[in-house]
């Protein structure tokens, strides 16, 4: 018995040593020379490989910004595709260092799944898409409909709550990925497809004739989408958090990918810009990075507004208006904490 105990203790020590070795994510990322970023398996506009096989999208640009701040090169990212079900396991098991996968921040994910959420980078809400030919104008008319839904997401719970509280019935048709949902919706297996409004816009953009499909006016939930990291590494969480904040604040201050090099060359008259670009103070050192961390992140893909417009904005196939995601000065609710 004693021998077994000793063996177990020995094994436990080995395992703990292994656990302790992965304590600092920043050191691990620097040692590996690449940032492992958990993204979707493919959602147009948010994260999808382009024709040349290079990952592009809104979430992807945030991954690249973090990589640029930490490693100095936005291309040093290894993208880890994940389904709605595998994303947290991939992050928690260390297969990914950071998660940007249009993920809703919720209490149970934050507290029970042991995640640390980064500032919200996209305010979303769950909506419904139906074929225009169906003649439905409101979600309250959906009694008895078959609803395609991505399994393993918060949308599944919102849907159950919405139909229950409105006293109408439905048939849930659970689907594993966005592509399959598209196929089933087109084949008419379901009358309605429900997911976050941004995801609906992305799916609708894929149709030959998007006008044949409409997004219903009801938004049945709040979906603050943001990145996340593992619990327990506050330094890493701080880095990720402030990269996101810096990108949002950069838009507010008028720092763009075009003028960041010029503004960061020497201290100017605006102390806010100086602090962010490292020409004043030692904010980069406090994070464990160098002074130009934010400048590199902005130079990589531009500020928040540039990232939004390039991937999902009004001029893209997705055509999403800024809406809630405008700066607080412009009537939105984007409000980055001050960098001081």
């Amino acid at each position, binding site marked *: 018995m004693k021998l077994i105990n000793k063996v177990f203790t020995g094994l436990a020590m080995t*395992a703990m040593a292994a656990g302790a070795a992965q304590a600092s994510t920043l050191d691990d990322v620097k040692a590996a020379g690449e940032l492992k970023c958990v993204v979707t398996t493919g959602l147009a506009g948010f994260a999808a490989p382009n024709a040349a096989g290079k990952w592009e999208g809104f979430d992807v640009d945030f991954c690249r910004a973090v990589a640029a701040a930490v490693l100095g090169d936005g291309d040093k990212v290894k993208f880890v595709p994940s389904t709605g*079900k595998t994303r947290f396991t991939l992050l928690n098991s260390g297969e990914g260092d950071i998660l940007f996968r249009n993920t809703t921040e919720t209490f149970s994910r934050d507290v029970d799944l042991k995640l640390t959420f980064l500032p919200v980078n996209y305010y979303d809400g769950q909506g419904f898409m139906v074929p225009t030919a169906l003649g439905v104008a409101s979600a309250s008319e959906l009694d008895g409909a*078959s609803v395609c839904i991505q399994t*393993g997401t918060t949308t599944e719970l919102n849907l159950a709550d919405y139909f229950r509280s409105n006293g109408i019935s*439905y048939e849930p048709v659970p689907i594993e990925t966005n592509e399959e949902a598209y196929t089933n919706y087109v084949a008419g297996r379901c009358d309605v497809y429900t997911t976050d409004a941004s995801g609906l816009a992305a799916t609708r953009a894929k149709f030959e004739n998007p006008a044949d499909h409409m997004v219903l006016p009801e938004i049945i939930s709040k979906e603050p989408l943001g990145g996340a990291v593992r619990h327990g590494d506050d330094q890493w969480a701080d880095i990720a958090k402030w990269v996101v904040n810096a990108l949002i604040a950069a838009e507010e201050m008028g720092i763009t990918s075009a003028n960041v090099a010029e503004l960061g060359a020497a201290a100017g008259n605006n102390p806010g810009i100086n602090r962010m670009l490292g020409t004043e103070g030692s904010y980069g050192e406090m994070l464990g990075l160098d002074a130009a961390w934010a400048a590199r992140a902005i130079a990589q893909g531009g500020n928040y507004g540039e990232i939004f417009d390039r991937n999902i904005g009004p001029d893209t196939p997705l055509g999403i208006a800024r809406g809630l995601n405008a700066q607080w000065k412009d009537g939105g609710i984007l409000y980055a904490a001050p960098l001081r």
Partner: protein
Amino acid sequence: MSNTNPLLKAWYDKETRSVIVQVIAMAVILGFFAYIINNAIINLATLGKDINFNFLWQPASYDINQHLIEYDSRSSHFTATVVGLINTVLIAIAGIILATILGFILGVMRLSNNWLTQKIAYVYIEFVRNVPVLIHILLVHGIMVNTLPRPKQSVNFGDTFFLNNRGFQSPSPDFQPLFWVVAGVFVGAIIFAFLFSRYAKKVQDETGKHYPVALINLFAIIVVPAIVYFLLGSPIAWEVPALKGFNFKGGMVIRPEFIALWLALSLYTAAFIGEIVRSGIMAVSHGQSEASHALGVSSGRTLSLVVIPQALRVIVPPLTSQYLNLTKNSSLAIAIGYMDVVATIGGISLNQTGREMECMMIVMAIYLTLSLLISSGMNWYNNRIKLVER
């Protein structure tokens, strides 16, 4: 050249050596498992997670389209697990029945003297069993969803049954109190059939007199309850499905996900069972049926009394493993959204609660139990039919 080291001496002794090797092998295996289990527990503890099954009593908060017991989004994760388990058992039983029937037909076709029949079975078996079962499932589901009409253009069978890409809609029974009399008669008939078989066998053993047991039992089990049913004025009210809004309301529906999974698993497993049946029948020496014919026994009775009992001894053990395969393959249901136990507790519940270890342990325990149940059932049957040596 004598060696005095007792350890080496022991090593050169054949029996001692084999014991030593076994002890070392066992220690390595146990050590390996102890390491990975311990590692999992420690890593979970590092993340601040414990192993805890209390989440099972929290509301599941999601809906399941096919539930044979009472379930809604306020039911617990435990109820969701039971719903998933029932769906798994349902697909396993339905699949095993259909696969067995198709498999026996295929096996007999393979042995047919008719060139075309034999080749059809051959091509079917070779094609089907060499394509992964997941492809079959996706293919059948894709065909059903894409080629069947939408609800408004349903294929209509006399305004009672409807077929569309939302499934097969049929009337659902609403049992009146008098129905339970019919049910009682049915149960009584089964007991009668059982007793009568034993009596007939006894009479035959003693006197050689032969009763048409199958015919009489069939009459007792099917015709008698049917007569009682109609005499009592058909005590089942049928609720007929009707198109209302988006979908059919009322009645029962067999969803395309169930049909696709059922057909794909059955068609796939039937190809394997066909080959097992063929090998079983071929294992019975041809001389046996010739001898039976020489004694003047008819072809049908030769088959049922001489060939099949001996073939079954060869067929049943590999058949058991096909049944197990079918049951385990049913976990691919998640690919098309059939809510089996992997999709409920191992999928949505896991995802919403983040309790991966616990959920996976439950799923593994369920599959292990199902497999052991099937195995023990088939072993019991195998023992009954095995060759009794005198």
